[in-house]
């Protein structure tokens, strides 16, 4: 498991890459939200039972981990530049993830709803453009 934290002064960031099942309630318990923050936008991605119309059993996620970490760092820095976000946390599971299991959790905390949603959606869109992780469906 790779964990990357950074909260020196600016926006809090936490990236976790793990080949173990994601503990969503632990993720939530670790949330830290100050009194000036009014909004948390979350996203949870789970492995669906079909991929391109075919029934599957699981997805195997492969990552170029060193580059994943660096590219997320660039994305987090861009979020800090664009929005008044207090905290970004992202956990991505790697390896074999069975149908219905969680592959991704993202949380963005900001003063207001609009910026929390905007940053959360932007982060996921950019992740799907630049973060070197690949999916391989495993047939049922």
């Amino acid at each position: 498991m790779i964990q990357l934290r950074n909260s020196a002064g600016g926006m809090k960031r936490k990236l976790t890459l793990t080949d173990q099942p994601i503990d969503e309630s632990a993720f939530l318990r670790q949330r830290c939200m100050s009194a000036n923050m009014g909004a948390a936008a979350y996203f949870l991605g789970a492995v669906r039972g079909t991929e391109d119309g075919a029934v599957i059993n699981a997805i195997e996620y492969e990552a170029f981990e060193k580059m994943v970490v660096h590219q997320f760092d660039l994305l987090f820095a861009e979020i800090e530049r664009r929005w008044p976000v207090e905290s970004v946390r992202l956990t991505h599971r790697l390896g074999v993830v069975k149908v219905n299991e969680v592959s991704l959790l993202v949380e963005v905390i900001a003063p207001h709803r609009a910026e929390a949603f905007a940053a959360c959606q932007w982060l996921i869109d950019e992740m799907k453009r630049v973060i070197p992780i690949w999916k391989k469906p495993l047939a049922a």
Partner: protein
Amino acid sequence: MQITIQFFSYLKELTGCAQISETLAAGATLGALHDRLLAQFPRLAPMRKSTLLAVGVDYQARDYVLQDGDEVSLFPPVQGG
């Protein structure tokens, strides 16, 4: 100069190897290396335009000038999430 090349995802299956090493003349570009790999591994050719190129942990354009010891990575469009 000596360059290491890694393949990820199905590019690795198409080449049959995860990593190779190439010796290039000084001043060679990333694009020139890519063309050489396409000649060496013709099964990569159909993915030529969609293949992403990185040096170290950063994306680079085809005109990037390689340096001795660079680690180059080739991979298909990413699909996290």
